[in-house]
C-alpha cells in the first residue's frame, strides 16, 4: 500500500513560498485519509451484517424445515435403540397380594359386517345363525339385505367361532381385533373387582372401561401407559378369599339364610384380606342391575360395603370401651340389669333375665341390653356421638371401591337420650359390616384408628388414638371371655384363641317397626385374642337354624359356627401356627418403657 504523506514536501514548500499556512495541507490530507479509513470500516461492517443475516436466515430455514419434516412424517417406533417397553395390553392386570392374577386381558376378535360387500347375504345370515345360536337368522337377513352399510354382529368371538366364520367365506364378514377383559377366577371376589365393558368402539380397537369395583375406581390408573404395564396389586389373598366364599356359601345354605357377607381385615394395616358377599355374580358376564325392587336383592349388591344394617349387640363393645377409657367403670364395676328397664314410655328388655345386677365384664359376656344402656347413660349422648364419630361410623367407609360412597350410615334424625340407649346396644344406627370390622380393628389393635383399604400396603397405619392401650387390652380379654363362656361359645377354635362379640338385630320392616322372625346375625371376631392379627366380621341375612326343637336365629347359633369354621380353615392359610394361649394375667401386662 502506498502511503500518502501528510505533509508532502513539494506542496509545503510551495505554500511557504506563497506565505500560506502549511498546516491546512496537513489537515486536508488527514481528512482524506480518515475518509478512506471510514469507507473501509463501513464496507467491512456491512459485510459482517450480511454474513450474520445470512446465518440467521439459514438457521431459521433449518428450524422451519425440520419442523415441517417432523410434522409431516409418520410416527415410527425407534428400531435401533434397545427397547424396554413391556406394555402388552391397553389395561393393566389386577393381581392379589401374592401376585396371582385376578383380572387380565385376552386378545380376541369382534365380528362385523359390511352388507354392501356381501355376495350371498341370505346364505351368510343362515350360516351365522348356525354358528351363533343366540342370533336370529330372520333379523340378520333383514339387516344384510337392508340399507345398512355397517353393523356389528358379535363383540367377542372365540378362535373356533372365528374359524367357522372364515369358512363361510363371505367378503362382507370382517373381523376387528379386540382386547377382552378376563376374570379367570370367575365369581371369586366379584364384588371387589366389579366389571368392565367396551367404551368407544372402532373397527381396529375398542376401549375397555371399568364399570364397577376397583376396575372403576382405578380406571385411569389401569389405563395409564406411564405405569409401564405394572399390575394393580390388591390386598386380597386369593386362597383365603376362595375359602371364605366356600365356607360362607355352605353356612348360608345350612342356616337357610337369604345372603351373607364376611370381611377379613388386618388390624394393623387396615388391608382387607378377603371380602365376600353372597349371592355373587360372574364379572365376565356382569348381569344388568335390577330395574325394580330393592337393589339389595341383586347379586351385584355388595353387602359388606353397601349394606347398612343395625348390627345389634356388636355395638356394646363401643359403649363399654368408651366407659372404661373414660374411667367411669372398670370391668368389675357392678351395674343394674333389672328387666325391664323403663325409660319414659319405652321399655328395654333382655333376651333372658340376668337378675338385678351384673359386673361390666358379665354385661358383655352375657350381652345384656339393660346393663349396656345403664353404662352408656353414665357417658352421655354427646360423648357417645363423638366417640362413634371418631371410629368412622358416621361417614361412608374410605375403601377404594366406587360402591363405598353408597354405603352411607343411617343416623337417627335427632340424637335423643333414647337414641343414646338403643344405639349403645346396636339399634337405631345402621352401619356396614366393613365399618364394624374397621372399628373393631381400631379398638383391639392397641387403640389407634385404622382405615380399611383394598390396596396392598407394607407398613402399619398409625392413626389417631381412639382408646388407650390399657383399654384395648382390657377389651381384648373381656371379648375373649365371650367366646370362652358367653354367647359365642361355639366360636372357639383350638389354638387360635378367638375372641369377639355376637349381635342379633331384628330386621326393620319397610313400613316401620321390626319383624319378629327376620334377623341380621353378626359375629365380629378377632384372633389371636392376646395379640390380634385379623378381624373377621360375618353377617348372615335372615338365618334360621332348625336342628333343634324350635328354630334358633341368634348369632350364637348361626354366624358364630360359620365364623369358627372360617377361622379354622383360613388361619393356616394366613400362616398362623396354632399356639397355646398365654395365661390371662399376661394379656393385661403392658410393656413399660
Amino acid at each position, binding site marked *: 500500500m502506498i502511503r500518502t504523506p501528510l505533509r508532502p514536501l513539494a506542496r509545503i514548500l510551495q505554500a511557504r513560498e506563497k506565505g500560506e499556512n502549511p498546516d491546512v495541507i496537513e489537515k486536508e490530507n488527514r481528512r482524506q485519509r480518515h475518509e478512506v479509513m471510514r469507507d473501509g470500516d463501513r464496507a467491512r461492517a456491512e459485510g459482517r451484517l450480511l454474513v450474520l443475516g445470512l446465518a440467521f436466515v439459514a438457521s431459521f430455514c433449518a428450524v422451519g424445515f425440520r419442523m415441517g419434516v417432523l410434522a409431516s412424517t409418520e410416527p415410527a417406533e425407534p428400531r*435401533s435403540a434397545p427397547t424396554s417397553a413391556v406394555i402388552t395390553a391397553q389395561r393393566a392386570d389386577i393381581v392379589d397380594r401374592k401376585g396371582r392374577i385376578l383380572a387380565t*386381558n385376552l386378545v380376541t376378535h369382534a365380528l362385523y359386517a359390511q352388507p354392501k360387500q356381501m355376495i350371498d347375504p341370505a346364505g351368510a345370515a343362515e350360516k351365522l345363525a348356525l354358528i351363533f345360536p343366540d342370533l336370529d337368522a330372520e333379523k340378520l337377513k333383514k339387516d344384510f339385505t337392508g340399507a345398512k352399510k355397517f353393523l356389528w354382529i358379535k363383540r367377542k368371538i372365540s378362535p373356533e367361532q372365528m374359524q367357522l366364520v372364515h369358512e363361510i367365506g363371505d367378503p362382507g364378514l370382517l373381523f376387528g381385533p379386540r382386547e377382552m377383559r378376563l376374570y*379367570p*377366577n370367575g365369581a*371369586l371376589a366379584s364384588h371387589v373387582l366389579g366389571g368392565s365393558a367396551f367404551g368407544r368402539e372402532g373397527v381396529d380397537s375398542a376401549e375397555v372401561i371399568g364399570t364397577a369395583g376397583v376396575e372403576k375406581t382405578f380406571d385411569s390408573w389401569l389405563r395409564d401407559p406411564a405405569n409401564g404395564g405394572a399390575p394393580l396389586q390388591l390386598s386380597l389373598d386369593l386362597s383365603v378369599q376362595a375359602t371364605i366364599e366356600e365356607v360362607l356359601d355352605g353356612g348360608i345354605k345350612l342356616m337357610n339364610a337369604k345372603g351373607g357377607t364376611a370381611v377379613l381385615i388386618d388390624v394393623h394395616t387396615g388391608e382387607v384380606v378377603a371380602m365376600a358377599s353372597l349371592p355373587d355374580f360372574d364379572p365376565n358376564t356382569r348381569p344388568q342391575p335390577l330395574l325394580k325392587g330393592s337393589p339389595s336383592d341383586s347379586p351385584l349388591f355388595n353387602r359388606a360395603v353397601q349394606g347398612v344394617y343395625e348390627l345389634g349387640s356388636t355395638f356394646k363393645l363401643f359403649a363399654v370401651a368408651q366407659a372404661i377409657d373414660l374411667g367411669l367403670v372398670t370391668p368389675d364395676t357392678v351395674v343394674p340389669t333389672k328387666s325391664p328397664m323403663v325409660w319414659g314410655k319405652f321399655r328395654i328388655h333382655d333376651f333372658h333375665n340376668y337378675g338385678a345386677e351384673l359386673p361390666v365384664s358379665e354385661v358383655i359376656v352375657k350381652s345384656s341390653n339393660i346393663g349396656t344402656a345403664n353404662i352408656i347413660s353414665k357417658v352421655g349422648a354427646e360423648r357417645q356421638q363423638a366417640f362413634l364419630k371418631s371410629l368412622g361410623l358416621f361417614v361412608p367407609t374410605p375403601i377404594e371401591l366406587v360402591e363405598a360412597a353408597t354405603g352411607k350410615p343411617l343416623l337417627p334424625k335427632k340424637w335423643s337420650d333414647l337414641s343414646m340407649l338403643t344405639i349403645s346396644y346396636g339399634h337405631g344406627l345402621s352401619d356396614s359390616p366393613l365399618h364394624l370390622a374397621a372399628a373393631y380393628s381400631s379398638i383391639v389393635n392397641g387403640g389407634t384408628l385404622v382405615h380399611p383399604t383394598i390396596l396392598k400396603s407394607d407398613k402399619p397405619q398409625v392413626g389417631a388414638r381412639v382408646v388407650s392401650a390399657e383399654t384395648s387390652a382390657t377389651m381384648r380379654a373381656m371379648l375373649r371371655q365371650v367366646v370362652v363362656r358367653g354367647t359365642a361359645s361355639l366360636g372357639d377354635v383350638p389354638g387360635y384363641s378367638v375372641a369377639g362379640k355376637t349381635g342379633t338385630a331384628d330386621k326393620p320392616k319397610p313400613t316401620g317397626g321390626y319383624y319378629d322372625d327376620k334377623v341380621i346375625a353378626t359375629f365380629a371376631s378377632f384372633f389371636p385374642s392376646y395379640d390380634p392379627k385379623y378381624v373377621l366380621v360375618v353377617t348372615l341375612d335372615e338365618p334360621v337354624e332348625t336342628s333343634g326343637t324350635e328354630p334358633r336365629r341368634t348369632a350364637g347359633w348361626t354366624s358364630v359356627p360359620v365364623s369358627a369354621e372360617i377361622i379354622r380353615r383360613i388361619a*393356616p392359610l394366613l400362616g398362623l401356627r396354632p399356639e397355646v394361649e398365654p395365661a390371662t394375667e399376661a394379656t393385661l401386662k403392658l410393656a413399660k418403657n
Partner: protein
Amino acid sequence: MRGLLILMSVIAVMALGFWAYRENYRTQAELADVRALQTEIGALRESLSVLNAEWAYLNRPDRLRELADLNFERLGLLPMQPEQFGEVAQIAYPSADVGELAPIVNPVETSASMEQTP
C-alpha cells in the same frame, strides 16, 4: 507427484464410498433383523400373557377344589388344617441316596408362534 496425489485421492474416495455403501446396507439389514426380533418379542409377550391367563384359569381355586375331590382316592388331599403345622425336629434327616429327578423327555411347546414357522 501431483498426479500421484490426485490418483491416491480418487482411490481413497472410491474406497470410502464402497465402505459407506456396505455399512449402509449392513445397517439396514440389522434394522430389519431388529424389527423382526421386536415383532417376535411382541408375539411372544402376547402368547405369554395368554399363557398366564390360561394358567390363572386352570389354577382357579374352584377347579383345583373339584380336581382334588375327583382324585381324592389317589391323592387324599383335604383342606389345610391347623394340626398340620409341624416342628422341624419332626422331619427325618434326608438320606444320602435320594435319586435324581428324571429328566423331562417330552416338553410341551405351547407357544403359538412356533406353529406358524415349521
